[in-house]
């Protein structure tokens, strides 16, 4: 199975229904995962998918107790192996330990029991055969959460391009080392806790969509660090910024869109498919639908989505480009985030990132490029922007323009502005 070789594969992720995860429930937890994986693999075989990525994104107690995480990982690996032997189903296993470092506040990012257990889980799962290692890392979220609520783009840039970048550099150096030692792949990260939070808040009309779109663009600078440290893709599914990272790195990327509605609604249901190497449902609980357990139903939906992509690809680059054109055009007139995640926009944002002298300036440039793309499209009538959002185009622009040229000046001013009690500055080399 070659990811990024032209063929698109489904990538399935699933999670528990309402239940506790603890020592006494672990037999039930294991039974749930066994039910989910066997049902999904049965359907994947029946539909003759060309191959499959299965992601196991752990729940916090499974990272805190690596034995529990490994028990489930081993069940999944065993079932994947059995499906391969019995039905010739090709598959790849992605292990995504939940980043538990924020279980204490302020988070301890670089040491301690939480860190040790998380790293242990990466290491043991890689040794057990997890071919892809991923994480939704959280460094910088301490500041980003507040910054989103006040729509303060300067603070978002601080959270992402200063705090996030420094944390990811530390974390991904470790993950890359684990991957290398175990002969598996450091895959990639996602700005889930940052840009997806913004996107979901915007869907709920709590913050402007144009702001969420700019946050997405900025978030690429942070997620890029994984690849700077040795990750090779596919970047994690919920990282919608992956399309920008693909333009920079050329690495394959997991994407998700409409078929992840089970996990969250989004304004980018089709456009997100235009650059995917695997196509994911993000995560679905093990609840019963009339058609079967929800993971099985979503397996089927992904399988058919992917068949369509691959049929277009099979007709050559022009045909593939035509399908992508429709996927893109379907969304980009209705939402600013859809617009900036179109491959053509992503290339422009990527260019602005790689031409910048440092991560901070790259973040500012990415934000400005996104904002200009949105403003131009709004002005030429090709993008709808809700009346209540229009003033935000100027607000964000002014805020971006006011940011200093120099990174250390920026950091100093931000350390004054943000709530520094929510994080440990030493964990971000900020002392």
């Amino acid at each position: 199975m070659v990811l990024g070789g032209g063929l698109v594969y489904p990538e399935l992720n699933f999670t528990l229904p309402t239940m506790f995860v603890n020592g006494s429930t672990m037999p039930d937890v294991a039974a749930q995962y066994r039910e989910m994986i066997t049902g999904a693999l049965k359907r994947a075989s029946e539909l003759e998918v060309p191959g499959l990525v299965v992601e196991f994104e752990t729940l916090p107690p499974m990272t805190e107790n690596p034995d529990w995480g490994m028990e489930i990982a081993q069940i999944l690996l065993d079932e994947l192996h059995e499906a391969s032997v019995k039905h010739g189903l090709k598959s790849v296993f992605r292990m995504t330990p939940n980043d538990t470092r924020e279980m204490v506040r302020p988070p301890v990012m670089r040491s301690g029991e939480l860190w040790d257990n998380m790293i242990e889980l990466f290491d043991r799962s890689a040794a057990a055969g997890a071919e892809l290692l991923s994480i939704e890392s959280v460094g910088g979220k301490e500041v980003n959460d507040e910054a989103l609520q006040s729509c303060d783009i300067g603070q978002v840039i601080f959270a992402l391009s200063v705090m996030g970048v420094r944390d990811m550099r530390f974390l991904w150096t470790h993950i890359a080392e684990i991957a290398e030692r175990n002969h598996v792949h450091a895959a990639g990260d996602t700005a889930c806790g940052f840009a997806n939070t913004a996107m979901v808040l915007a869907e709920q009309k709590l913050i402007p969509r144009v702001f969420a779109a700019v946050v997405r663009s900025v978030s690429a600078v942070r997620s890029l660090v994984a690849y700077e440290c040795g990750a090779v893709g596919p970047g994690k599914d919920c990282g919608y910024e992956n399309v920008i990272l693909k333009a920079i790195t050329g690495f394959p990327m997991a994407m998700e869109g409409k078929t992840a509605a089970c996990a969250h609604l989004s304004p980018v249901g089709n456009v997100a498919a235009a650059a995917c190497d695997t196509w994911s449902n993000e995560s679905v609980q093990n609840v019963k639908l009339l058609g079967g357990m929800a993971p099985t139903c979503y397996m089927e939906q992904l399988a058919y989505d992917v068949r369509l992509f691959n049929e277009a690809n099979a007709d050559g680059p022009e045909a593939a480009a035509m399908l992508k054109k429709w996927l893109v055009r379907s969304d980009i007139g209705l939402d600013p985030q859809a617009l900036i995640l179109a491959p053509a926009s992503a290339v422009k944002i990527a260019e602005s990132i790689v031409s910048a002298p440092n991560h901070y300036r790259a973040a500012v440039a990415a934000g400005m490029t996104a904002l200009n793309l949105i403003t131009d499209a709004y002005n030429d009538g090709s993008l709808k922007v809700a009346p209540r959002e229009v003033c935000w185009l100027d607000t964000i622009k002014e805020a971006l323009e006011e940011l200093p040229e120099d990174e250390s000046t920026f950091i100093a001013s931000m350390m004054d502005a943000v709530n520094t009690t929510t994080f440990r500055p030493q964990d971000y080399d900020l002392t």
Partner: protein
Amino acid sequence: MELTQLTEAIKTGNRKAAGLLTQEAIDAGVEPKAILNSLIEGMDDIGARFQKNEVFVPEMLIAARAMKESMVILEPLLVAAGIRPEFTALIGTVQGDLHDIGKNLVAMMWKGANFNVIDLGTNVPPERFVAAAREHNPQIIGLSALLTTTMPSMKSTIDELKAAGLSNAKIVIGGAPITQAFANQIGADAFAPDAASAVEVARKLVGSQSTAVLA
């Protein structure tokens, strides 16, 4: 003096003007209660526009900050006059769950509705809810969870609150995986599907007559 200017300063989130105009009003001998009402009127206006999706959270926040600027000056006089928030609300994300934002938005909305809000943060074990409820005697307790695997912690928390005899506080739950059916099942008094509706829900629970008692 005219308090409409102060109301306007709150509505537009003009923090500086809010502080100056509050001091001016006090100096002019305006009743503290009348000043408070003009602030409430401003928050009421922005709150209503927020509910109608005309403005966003940041606009709510800067209005709240302007209000806070006024309150720093006004509060000692209110306290002296025995005027204080009618209701106290406790809020926290339940044990095992680290999600902040939804809980924070509800806290903000409740503060805007003149609740005295005590925010216990995230990953809050049942015993901390119990201890805080004993200390603060809230009319409302809000529990948040974003993981299917921390939803059962809501039940444990409710069970312990009831076991501790703290069942006169009304419990409202919320978060992405939560439903009314789950609320019924675990004995919560209400379910708030989103931050905007959390105010309505809380007001209903405490039987507040005011459609918008904001402070």
